[in-house]
């Protein structure tokens, strides 16, 4: 298959993830949508890596996966902290940063 088709799939997944961040109000689902966007970037990186016959794009994608895992750990920790303090788990309600 042409590299172009992989890039189109990547763009579609990225757009869907961005729409999810805009539509959903649950921070958990927003984290899932950020995962979608990171995966779309990974797909584009690996497609270009294959197109150029160069493995450095795959290393880049691997590092992106590690960073995404870190983001998940911290984000889920934040959500658990929000829930423990009996604050609403809803980004529309959580507007103030001053606690």
């Amino acid at each position, binding site marked *: 298959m042409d590299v*172009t088709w992989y890039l189109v799939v990547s763009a579609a997944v990225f*757009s869907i993830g961005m729409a999810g961040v805009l539509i959903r109000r649950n921070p958990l689902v927003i984290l899932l949508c950020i995962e979608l966007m990171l995966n779309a970037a990974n797909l584009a990186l690996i497609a270009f890596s294959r197109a150029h016959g160069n493995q450095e794009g795959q290393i880049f994608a691997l590092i992106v996966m*590690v960073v995404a*895992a870190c983001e998940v750990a911290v984000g889920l920790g934040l959500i658990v902290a929000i829930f423990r303090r009996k604050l609403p788990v809803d980004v529309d309600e959580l507007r103030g940063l001053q606690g």
Partner: protein
Amino acid sequence: MAEVVFIFASIGVIAGAIGTIALRNPFYSVLALVSHLLALAALFLLLRAEFLAAAQVVVYAGAVMVLYVFVVAYIGGDKAALAAPAGGRLKVISALFATVLLVELCIAMVGSGLTVLGTQGTGFFPAFGTPEEIGRLLLTKFLLAFEVTSMLLLIAAVGAVVLARRRAGLEVPGHLSVGELVRGEFDHVNLPGRPGAELDKGTASGARLETQAENAGLPRG
């Protein structure tokens, strides 16, 4: 053959992504994301990224998604807050923005004039994307990125534990500001309520502890 696999895998990828944002229950969203990740691993295999496909399935669809499922199960009791519907106008505007972004990305990529577009890609050697090659690159050319990544993982693990640990006596919302959380000044708030402080009450050290707690509590007002 590759075309058939690509079509099915990309349908799975896009359907999983849509399911993630469209399903009302967060638990089903996580399951849709798992199917999305599995289909994406098939695309990675088509692009000769064997090690990344395996890592995707094991690390993402395995470990990270289990973490998500645990958190969904933990906070899942609050159905009213979780299932709050978004406004209809917001949905329409968001879908419009997403469509515009998709068109723009496609124009930007297809119209970029890159010579690799429209081809199957250049040739590759037989060991392309195998664990040996990825490991060799990680430990030679990209050693600095590898080490920095390990540091980042350590920081994230410590940060997650600090953020999510149990703090007794903080039931009242708005009791602890973000600044105090960042500076780590939340210990004085619940010191008398802790089991250790209860045991020490009455002794000299316990009195000293409580005085310290009061002193620390003064600047907060």
